[in-house]
């Protein structure tokens, strides 16, 4: 029982990170109908920017943890959003209206570019960060196994839920959110009605990147080690989460994220951690075959 609870806690934490990345996939897909393959790399960049900001703060002697966290958060979100914005402008915008495969290939190319860009600039070795947020609760003990719930885990899950709530409100109530929904439904019509489609799309990428940056920061704090390759796997799993929840649906992405996190944690904990990625991939295939619209999505009807 205790072991089960621990896996659940770990799974939810991991899931929160996936949820943050998944929101970026789902928002971009909703508005321009394509998978942003480079999004995983954006998350990785968020992690690196967080790491570097921590080091810089350490070097200048800022040690008060709450201040450091806020500064790193702002820094990560700012710089990573810039990357997200640039990716859209450079690799996707020129290809609007091009043949079907073009934006996909461009996205793959961008993903490869960013991975190697970071690898060349920061080296291929694993980077580590000494623990910043420590401590937690010991929830219960059973059979010699203690269930730990760390402060960091609580922070991660709460931040994710807060961000999701905030963005849901934004989508529903603000002009930007309305513009986004309009573009999702019918871009031409939205443009004719005066919506600045380019700006709406750019903003969508910015927000997605900012959330991925938060995920990157969380992962740096949580695991303490990062490398240039984390975007690849995390990206695929977060994408799986977005599909599971229903691509195009914000609550779906969050739900999917938590579910994937839990599935991965339980698979690792009870079966084998070597094949945990295979398990998540299996989920993707099953969802795409049996329920491509996901748990909360609506089935797509193609227009001829």
């Amino acid at each position: 029982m205790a072991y089960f609870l621990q896996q659940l806690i770990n799974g939810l934490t991991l899931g929160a990170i996936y949820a943050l990345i998944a929101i970026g996939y789902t928002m971009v897909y909703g508005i321009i109908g394509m998978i942003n393959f480079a999004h995983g790399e954006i998350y990785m960049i968020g992690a690196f920017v967080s790491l570097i900001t921590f080091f810089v703060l350490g070097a200048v002697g800022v040690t008060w943890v709450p201040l450091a966290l806020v500064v790193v958060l702002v820094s990560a979100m700012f710089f990573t959003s810039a990357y997200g914005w640039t990716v859209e402008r450079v690799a996707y915008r020129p290809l609007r209206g091009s043949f079907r495969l073009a934006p996909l290939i461009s996205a793959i190319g961008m993903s490869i570019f960013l991975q190697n860009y970071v690898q060349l600039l920061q080296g291929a070795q694993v980077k580590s960060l000494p623990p910043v947020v420590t401590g937690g609760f010991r929830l219960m003990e059973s059979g010699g196994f203690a269930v730990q719930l760390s402060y960091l885990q609580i922070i991660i899950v709460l931040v994710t839920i807060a961000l999701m709530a905030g963005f849901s409100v934004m989508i529903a109530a603000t002009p930007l959110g309305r513009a986004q929904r309009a573009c999702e439904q019918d871009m031409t019509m939205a443009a004719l009605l005066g919506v600045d489609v380019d700006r709406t799309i750019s903003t969508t990428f910015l927000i997605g990147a900012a959330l991925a940056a938060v995920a990157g920061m969380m992962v740096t704090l949580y695991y303490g080690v990062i490398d240039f390759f984390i975007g690849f796997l995390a990206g695929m799993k977060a994408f799986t989460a977005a599909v599971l929840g229903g691509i195009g649906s914000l609550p779906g992405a969050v739900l999917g994220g938590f579910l994937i996190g839990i599935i991965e944690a339980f698979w690792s904990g009870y079966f084998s951690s070597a094949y945990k990625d295979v398990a998540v991939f299996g989920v993707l295939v099953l969802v795409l075959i049996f329920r491509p619209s996901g748990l909360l999505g609506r089935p797509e009807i193609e227009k001829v």
Partner: protein
Amino acid sequence: MSALLQVEDLTMRFGGLLAIDRLSFAADEEKITAVIGPNGAGKTTVFNCLTGFYRPTSGSLALHREGRQLRLERMDGWRIARDAGIARTFQNIRLFAGMTVLENLVIAQHNKLMRASGWSIAGLLGMARYRSAETTALERAAAWLDRIGLVDRADHVAGTLPYGDQRRLEIARAMCTEPVLLCLDEPAAGLNPHESHELNRLLLSIRDRDRVAILLIEHDMNVVMGISDRVVVLDYGKKIADGTPNDIRVDPAVIKAYLGEPET
């Protein structure tokens, strides 16, 4: 003439939107049936249901062929084209724009050629059975090129053709599948009067020479009145009239749908 296609109580719902409401009509063999109505009446939706792109919410679509009855609402789109023998053109022309005119016509004969090539084995080995099938296919394509006047542009890339020629090519391509029913979605759209006249001639020759039934969505009344044997009028997804062109011309419900009530 017997009914080739029998549509019965066809209903199509998209979420909360009722696009087609209990529509029933028939298209006869070797006749031209036109489906008309104001924009948004559901005409293309009917086509999409007929050709397997949408799964109807309810109702039946029966094609009578060689004594059998094929229920289209249960079939995949490509099966409808292959087994039922229903070919279609699209509102926004869907040619294989990067391929040549000739290639477009040859691809339409894919299924026959595929069978003759024996899963490509006979084709790879260059066996006579495949070579003769290919020659037949080319001859059929050449005959159609002649009928639509594109023989000297057979090796031109289809996307570079002028608009009117592209429309005709799309029709010829559909005919190369040797259908029993040809569904045309606004074939006269964007054509000038001379081209519409040529289109009329082509469609009449398809009906009379090739003995193929035609189901036609059109807004151009010269085409509709000029060649249709029967006209079905839709408005807001419902059938509001069904008869000969002359009947339709004076039908008060039709006039109201198109022109509105006269002001009093």
